């Protein structure tokens, strides 16, 4: 791998990282807080590549210049493994894999496994009250729905087929990157939206006192009585 090739590979990697972090694409893979670091890292990669290109051009113009090595001829070449860096760069530029969705929700156990021993504050004002799936889950399962009773609620997530084939409402939680994504799953009753998996849905409805167990990890799966629902485009921040 010559110095020029290394420079081009680094431009691709840095450019792919910059493109993903200057748009909202990076939110499919990592948390929002990483953005400034991604931009800085992308810039540094591009600068490293540009410096290498300038060195290479100077070297081509004045071959008598001492190369930056020890004169054995392999000084400017790099390891073959460097080629691998093209894979994530090209995947980010040309394939742009989607955010985690129904496949992860079907394979991984739901996050509602641990009773959080806290006092649940009253719901936010508004009719319907907007809740994250995780917040709904905790209030429904570990607080017996006390704060949910008598309110119209709005939940947003994507559809994922449950163990019985019926659609569930799900959302993936990230703590760092998609490798540690854990789904939150909510069972649906009432006007269940029968759409294809990974369709994003904003649903309005009420809490019902019914829970099931996730067969994958015995986590609790609360249910939600859907009154109305609408399809929405996938949000820029797909994770909770």
């Amino acid at each position, binding site marked *: 791998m010559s110095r020029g090739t290394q420079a081009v590979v680094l431009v691709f990697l840095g450019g792919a990282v910059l493109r993903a972090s200057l748009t909202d694409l990076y939110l499919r893979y990592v948390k929002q807080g990483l953005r400034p670091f991604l931009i800085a890292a992308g810039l540094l990669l591009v600068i490293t590549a540009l410096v290498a290109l300038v060195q290479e051009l100077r070297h081509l113009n004045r071959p008598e210049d001492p190369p930056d090595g020890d004169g054995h001829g392999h000084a400017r070449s790099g390891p073959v493994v460097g080629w691998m860096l093209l894979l994530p760069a090209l995947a980010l530029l040309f394939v742009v894999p989607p955010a985690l969705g129904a496949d992860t929700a079907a394979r991984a156990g739901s996050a509602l496994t641990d009773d959080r021993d806290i006092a649940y504050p009253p719901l936010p004002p508004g009719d319907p009250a907007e809740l994250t799936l995780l917040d709904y889950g905790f209030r429904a399962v570990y607080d017996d729905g006390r704060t949910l009773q008598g309110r119209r609620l709005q939940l947003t997530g994507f559809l994922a087929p449950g163990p019985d084939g019926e659609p569930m409402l799900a959302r993936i939680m990230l703590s760092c990157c998609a490798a*540690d994504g854990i789904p939150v799953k909510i069972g649906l009753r009432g006007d269940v939206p029968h759409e294809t998996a990974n369709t994003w849905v904003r649903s309005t409805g009420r809490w019902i006192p019914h829970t099931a167990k996730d067969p994958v990890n015995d986590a609790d799966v609360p249910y939600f009585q859907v009154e109305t629902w609408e399809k929405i485009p996938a949000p820029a921040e797909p994770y909770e």
Partner: protein
Amino acid sequence: MIRLNTTDSAAPTLPEPQISTVPVAEPEAPDRERMVGSTEVLCFLLILVGVLHRQIASLVTDPRLQTWLTVFVSVMVQAVPFLVFGVVLSAVIAVFVPRSFWARALPRHPALAVPVAGMAGVVLPGCECGSVPIAGSLIRRGVTPAAALAFLLAAPAINPIVLTATAIAFPRNPEMVAARGGASLLVAMLVGWLWLRVGRADWIRLPHRAHLDGLPRMTAFWTACRHDVIHAGGFLVVGAMAAATINVVVPQQFLHDLAARPVVSVLALAALAVLLSICSEADAFVAASLSQFSLTARLAFLVVGPMVDLKLVSMQAGIFGRRFAVRFAPATFALAVLVAATFGTVIW
């Protein structure tokens, strides 16, 4: 007026003769002999991808394959800032910090240098991808390998960001933070001392890096950066692919069944830490979610993860050589499991 304008607009083309006086870059003789160099291969590849990218994207329609690709890309995206940060720091060590500094900063006796270097890991706020090139750079600059290795193991586990994340992930078990920090530091020191007793210098083969000493400082700095990103980054990609594969193929039901057995569960979570290769800043949250496992098993997950995992072993093999990695990783794994199990039995 019009005529004047046209002559004006033609003016910028006037220096044309000057351009032609610049010597045209001629390819070097040895390059010409090898007709197909890496640059040609690269051009061919990129043109191919550019032309066929729609077809390539449409190949990836299987949901499982898409999940694999998403996990792979996100492990890389997550790691790139830490990799670049570590590489820049290691280039600073290589270029701007004089060799004499390390002789003054670390105790002369290697056995004392090990704990000092281990505790110095507190100041490096990053995850494990960055610390591998830094440790390589330290060894190059004359730091005794035992101390550099203690630093390599301790830094990703005991720095303030990772310990804070652990505290947030285990709100009802604050002792987990102390257990993780203490056990990790102890393992790092034990491995360092073990290296002093049985380690052999010829196991470590640092990759050839262009000699930086004769170069102007900034040139040397950027050369070191480029070299390390290509090298460590390439191995990081291999590790990320392995981690994504494990993430997609290991059935969670299987883990659930393992959790019921105490001894097996500790080994299982230690092995899972190796296979999943989660960044040390995130692994506490994953450990917290594995709530069917005992706290001891989860401590083993947290101690082993930043020290031995697929991407780390891949990077260590790349930076220090294969002969080193096949000895270092199993020894570290065994000590980490042992120390974590002991800490866990004493505390819980």
